[in-house]
């Protein structure tokens, strides 16, 4: 196996970690939105979402670092100024930025659910409002969709 083969494997591993982590967080987040969830149940789901964070972080790092290295090592004359590389980098950065905003919001929601769980486990309208806030959901699922869009760009490589 050549260096390029190893780099491609690590890059794909990064993509699996990143998108896999996004899927884990997305499924658990969706489960938390479900009707009549008690705060303790929501807190349990948010504790599980924490396992996705290192997966997403490692995926972000691997896809970027190894991806840039791959462009350099590529035998197909790809360059850092290729449109598909630039668009992928912009979408990657945007996904990371939105993911960061979402992560902070989710952590606060998780802590709020933990507090309510310790104070009698009675749900409040405020908790449900946080879980279903349209802007927060748009940021959350928007960051995930951007990761899927980068995957599409990697396959089609428009302009290459």
């Amino acid at each position, binding site marked *: 196996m050549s260096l390029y083969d*190893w780099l491609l*494997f690590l890059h794909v591993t990064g*993509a699996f970690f990143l998108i896999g982590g996004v899927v884990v967080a997305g*499924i658990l987040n969706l489960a938390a939105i479900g009707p009549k969830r008690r705060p303790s149940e929501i807190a349990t789901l948010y504790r599980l979402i924490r396992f996705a964070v290192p997966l997403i972080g490692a995926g972000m790092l691997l896809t970027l670092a190894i991806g840039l290295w791959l462009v350099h090592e*590529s035998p*197909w004359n790809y360059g850092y100024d290729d449109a598909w590389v630039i668009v992928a980098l912009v979408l990657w950065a945007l996904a990371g930025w939105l993911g960061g905003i979402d992560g902070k919001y989710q952590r606060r929601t998780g802590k709020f659910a933990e507090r309510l769980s310790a104070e009698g486990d009675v749900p409040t309208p405020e908790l449900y409002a946080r879980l279903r806030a349209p802007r927060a959901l748009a940021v959350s699922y928007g960051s995930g969709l951007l990761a899927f869009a980068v*995957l599409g760009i990697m396959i*089609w490589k428009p302009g290459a």
Partner: protein
Amino acid sequence: MLAAIRPDSWNLPLFLHVLGSTLTFGATATLALVGFSGLRSGPERAAWLRSLAFRIGGYVLVPAFILMRGGAQWIADKEYPGNAKTPGWLDVGFIVTEPGAILVIVMLILAWLAARRPGFRGAVAVPWLASVYLLALGIAWFAMSAKPGS
């Protein structure tokens, strides 16, 4: 890399295959997490988590698996039509997905039984089977991406 050497008509099946694979990985990881969490919880919480694990399996893992396997077959038929000999890295993918389908079915049956019967001992196998399948998926993506021996 592959864009330079593969026809455009292969892009959609490849995208669907990779999309299905990453969704399968994420769904299997979620199933494992929820399953292990269920094993450590009290009876009431465990019942809810087991039911959730079954629903994740049915609503997310199965469609993702079908997308992965369908996309794989579509692109394999384009790349190696008819009786063309398939390379070893592709065979690894089939080895992982075909017995993998049986593993997913067994996992779903156990998750369903675990969701219905609070004392069902087979519940313990669900997150472990999911973990085994995660490992198998890792082997498949190594074979698919690095293509050793090709």
